């Protein structure tokens, strides 16, 4: 585990009490309602708050209160993207970028200035003042500035929350691209399920200052004892690869670990890795594999769990050859089909949404 930490912090009536570990790369989404302590948690990681406990990053100890050791923020190799625009208003874009870059000794740098600037598409903004940038542009500059410090750990505190829908849509592709290329752990705070589904590999669910669940994205999303699996949009994310385009039927085929998915023709190169969402409300169940159905995506699955969702509604967790799925059906259907744990059923997926 690349990042291991344990914090205890009391602020008035609020108590943060967390224990976590993050894999050495990939995005860990810290998910939870506002006021649950997400921001406090990454402020502790950054050393902006001093909690009791310890923090280890890539074998380096950043904090160990048992021996009163606390590395101040400016000595921690981290990048921090704040929720609101946090660019220095008195400096141009390029000076903002250089602020961190120049403070890193050259032998500790693993990024090239021009590459980061090109990657985030901010070359034409370099000589502007922050006040002349749009919200989305500011966040891209802030992200570039954080990356230019060659961090060992990237912290992002709801970087899209303060942006309008257009700016969110503008930044998300950069974050997805970053996700593919970045070889360091990222802690990404959000309270938006869509961002989790787009970006997260691992999920850390926080409620009232405590970690209620953590683990691989799909494992946590399908945890039926968590409220996440009972929201209107409850569902799973499947990682797949584009394998074929069917021009006659105007379809695109994707392969995932459990089989093949078809969806409406998308303009994607073959071999492209994509994420799709399968919502629980779009999955129905059948005892037999009816070929006479209009639905294309039908998978043999085993029932793993059955839980009451809301009055008259049942949430069922399925194993489709190693890929987890959720299905929301009525209680009446469950009784009529005599569904039980361990039974083999066919999951019929009405719609698959490309992320």
């Amino acid at each position: 585990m690349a990042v291991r930490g344990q914090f205890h912090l009391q602020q008035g009536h609020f108590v943060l009490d967390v224990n976590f570990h993050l894999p050495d790369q990939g995005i860990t989404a810290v998910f939870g309602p506002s006021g649950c302590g997400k921001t406090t948690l990454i402020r502790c990681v950054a050393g902006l708050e001093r909690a009791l406990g310890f923090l280890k990053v890539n074998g380096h100890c950043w904090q160990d209160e048992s021996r009163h050791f606390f590395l101040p923020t400016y000595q921690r190799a981290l990048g921090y993207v704040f929720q609101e625009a946090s660019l220095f208003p008195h400096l141009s874009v390029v000076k903002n970028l250089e602020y961190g870059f120049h403070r890193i000794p050259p032998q500790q740098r693993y990024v090239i200035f021009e590459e980061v600037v090109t990657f985030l598409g901010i070359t034409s903004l370099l000589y502007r003042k922050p006040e002349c940038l749009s919200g989305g542009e500011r966040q891209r500059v802030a992200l570039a500035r954080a990356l230019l410090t060659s961090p060992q750990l990237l912290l992002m505190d709801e970087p899209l929350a303060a942006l309008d829908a257009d700016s969110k849509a503008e930044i998300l592709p950069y974050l997805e691209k970053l996700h593919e290329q970045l070889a360091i752990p990222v802690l990404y705070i959000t309270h938006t399920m869509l961002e989790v589904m787009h970006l997260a590999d691992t999920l850390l669910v926080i409620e009232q200052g405590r970690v209620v669940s953590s683990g691989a994205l799909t494992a946590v999303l399908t945890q039926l004892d968590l409220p996440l699996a009972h929201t209107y949009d409850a569902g799973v994310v499947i990682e797949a690869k584009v394998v074929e385009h069917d021009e006659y039927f105007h379809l695109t085929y994707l392969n995932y670990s459990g089989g093949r998915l078809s969806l409406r023709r998308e303009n994607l190169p073959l071999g492209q890795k994509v994420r799709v969402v399968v919502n629980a409300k779009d999955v129905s169940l059948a005892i037999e594999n009816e070929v006479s159905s209009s639905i294309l995506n039908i998978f043999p699955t085993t029932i793993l769990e059955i839980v009451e969702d809301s009055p008259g509604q049942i949430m069922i967790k399925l194993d489709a050859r190693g890929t987890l799925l959720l299905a929301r059906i009525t209680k009446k259907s469950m009784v009529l089909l005599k569904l039980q744990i361990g039974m083999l059923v066919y999951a019929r997926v009405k719609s698959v949404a490309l992320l």
Partner: protein
Amino acid sequence: MFDIAIDWTPIVLSLRLATVTTLILLFLGTPLAWWLAHTSCWCKTLIEAVVALPLVLPPTVLGFYLLLTLGPYGLVGGLWLLLTGGHLAFTFTGLVIGSVIFSLPFVVHPLQNAFQTIGKRPLEVAATLRAAPLDRFFTVVVPLARPGFLTAAILTFAHTIGEFGVVLMIGGSIPGKTQVLSISIYEQVERLEFQQVHWLAGALLLFSFLSLLILYSINKRLY
């Protein structure tokens, strides 16, 4: 009209006093204002009230207490005498100490406001970009608080040039040592030497007006 001989000594003395006072106050007032802007100590309100005292006290009252403290039997004056063998009351050094205390709120208030307006966030950002505390202060706080620093410097300078009561109480009117511009004007009025007074008073009026004009135009441009 131009054949009048202007005595430059009080003018030079006033300018020197104002410059020294402003420099010392920026040096001392900045950490004090920083502390007031960020502390949550219970004594903050107390210190703020003490700092603001010169704004409401009659200068003669302040001058009276300063004279007692700075005099050879006072706490500070006595200590000074012991250490240096010199006096503070009725000397230029005494004037500087008096002016520093008298103009303290003119430095602390604008700086404290500026620091509070900046808030903690830019400093936290700088820390995540590897800037050490002093580095953060000079590369982030100073440029962002520039209007505050300019206001503090101009107000202190102008206020010191214009002070009268405190200076008279602790400095008296020794030509070349403690007889500053405002006191020189007062004495010339007493001697009915109006022509010289016209020049000096007019110059002082113009100077004060220009200082404030510069101050307000800077603030308008920067805020």
